[in-house]
């Protein structure tokens, strides 16, 4: 995304304040509806949520950290926070590695590539609620994953290897298996997005570069490691950031698959707003914590990982 900015043209010479508006009347008129809409229906709700998070009618006083203190003391919030971090790390690892493998595959020339590309991209057209519903069918005790593992156990038995598999209710077991189902469900739906970003990156690498490495005698693996991956780094960064933003806010999938046993921040916030609790103040505080968490992740990633890559390149 960054490279677009460098292709800059010098802006028009700017006069003093009032004449600028006069000179750009058309632009201002064109942008006004969009700006007003985003300010009123996105920016204002964000500010409103932040204000709610520091208002605490129970504790009294306006700027109050009471709701944040309540969060720090809440075991459920701790679990939600921990689970969110685990799910994000699991999904990012799965999505980036699978996305990279798929992008490299689709970058090759082979028969039926167009068809395969269409098929592999299909999951991104499936609504999140539906993908969660399907994963429920795959991961319940009498689901397809257990059936597959039972069949594998039978197969090993025929080969003389004794392996007894006890069917697991993945979504209700709690702990890592349940978080794993959430990460897998998320992965299935969004790997195509990662694949597309990385495929765009591969297509942007000039053929001469790879050709030169080939002529220099670099083998396939070493070309990948020392030529292709470094050039792909900015696209990996874009994929990680776009995916992380959505993975931190994971909601529908977690609600359907893990809602009863393992909270994540998204479902925690939902449960605070919903009737039995009906506490918008705590919900708002948790939302602000999630926002800060995402912002911190993005900034740290850009500074630490992407910065180091740039220095190395």
């Amino acid at each position: 995304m960054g490279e677009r900015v460098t292709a800059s043209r010098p802006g028009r010479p700017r006069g003093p304040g009032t004449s600028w508006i006069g000179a750009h009347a058309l632009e201002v008129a064109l942008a006004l509806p969009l700006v007003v809409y985003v300010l009123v229906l996105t920016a204002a709700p964000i500010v409103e949520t932040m204000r709610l998070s520091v208002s605490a009618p129970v504790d009294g006083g306006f700027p109050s950290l009471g709701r944040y203190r309540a969060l720090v003391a809440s075991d459920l919030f701790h679990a939600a926070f921990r689970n969110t971090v685990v799910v994000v790390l699991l999904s990012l690892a799965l999505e980036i590695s699978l996305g990279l493998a798929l992008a490299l595959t689709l970058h090759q020339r082979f028969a039926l590539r167009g068809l395969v590309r269409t098929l592999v991209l299909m999951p991104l057209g499936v609504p999140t609620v539906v993908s969660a519903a399907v994963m429920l069918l795959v991961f319940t005790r009498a689901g397809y994953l257990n059936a597959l593992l039972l069949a594998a156990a039978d197969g090993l038995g025929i080969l003389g290897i004794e392996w007894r598999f006890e069917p697991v209710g993945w979504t209700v077991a709690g702990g890592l298996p349940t978080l794993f189902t959430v990460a897998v469900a998320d992965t299935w739906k969004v790997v195509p997005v990662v694949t597309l970003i990385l495929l765009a990156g591969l297509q942007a690498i000039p053929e001469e570069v790879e050709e030169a490495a080939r002529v220099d005698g670099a083998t396939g693996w070493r070309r990948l490691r020392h030529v292709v991956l470094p050039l792909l780094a900015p696209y990996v960064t874009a994929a990680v950031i776009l995916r992380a933003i959505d993975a931190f806010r994971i909601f529908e999938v977690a609600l359907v698959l893990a809602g009863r046993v393992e909270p994540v921040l998204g479902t925690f916030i939902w449960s605070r707003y919903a009737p039995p609790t009906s506490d918008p103040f705590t919900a708002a505080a948790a939302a602000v914590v999630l926002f800060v968490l995402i912002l911190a992740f993005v900034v740290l990633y850009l500074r630490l990982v992407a910065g180091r890559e740039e220095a190395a390149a």
Partner: protein
Amino acid sequence: MTADRMGQSRRERPGAATRLLFAGWVAACAATALFPIFVLLMVSVAPGTALFGERPALIVTAPTFRFWRIVAEGGDLWAPLAKSLAVAVMTTVGALALAAPGAYAIARLPVRARYGVVVGLLVTRMFPEFSIGVSVATRFAQLGLVDTYVGLVFAHLTGVLPFVAWLLVGAFEGVPRDVEAAAAIDGASRLATLRRVVLPITAPALAVAALFAWLYSWNEFLYARLLTTSQNTLPLQVFQAIDRGTRQQMAAVAIVLVLPILGVVAVLQRHLRPGALAGAIRG
């Protein structure tokens, strides 16, 4: 990649074993991508007994359309379908009407300001959508917009506008100012230039943006849930079926929701730079 060896040229074919392995891997990828959709199809026609026991059948041998009939005749399908369609079309029109002019103006800003606006749009995406949704829903409740098409369209627009605007800023940046300048020299007014020169050049990007707005609205769950008390949209109907219906009914509704989108994705991916498609899709 795996196939080439030292000094091999691109045209040379790798060995038979490698090609077989590669074909197997490609087939496995495609099968994994399609498996859940296949499961939906099977479950929607499964007789009740096929889903009990430890090992659900992978292929239903005696398909029944009983559950499809229940869904179609029970009023759980047509009304939500109509509402989802109407809201999605209205959201698409609204998104283009608001975002296209705005994005054009943003694209003509000086670089730093433009960069600031684009980063700002990205940062609004980092805030939990849920809280924005609750705040918007509360305000809409005061305005009597709950359970109306207009209310839901307005809510969907809040979700759609940042990324549609972002997509279109990129498209308008690609239109050289010289083209506009040339039209101006030929005596065209600025509005005429926009309509006759800039819009035709950016038509493909506008089409993509429209499809995304449509997809977003068609899939959207959160705002629909917050702003609906009587008539469900399709995603809500799926969620309700997860909660209360049979698995088969859920699968049937889900397929109605999925099929048009698969068509859209298949068409879209043919006409797109991969980057544009990826940037605009939410997980």
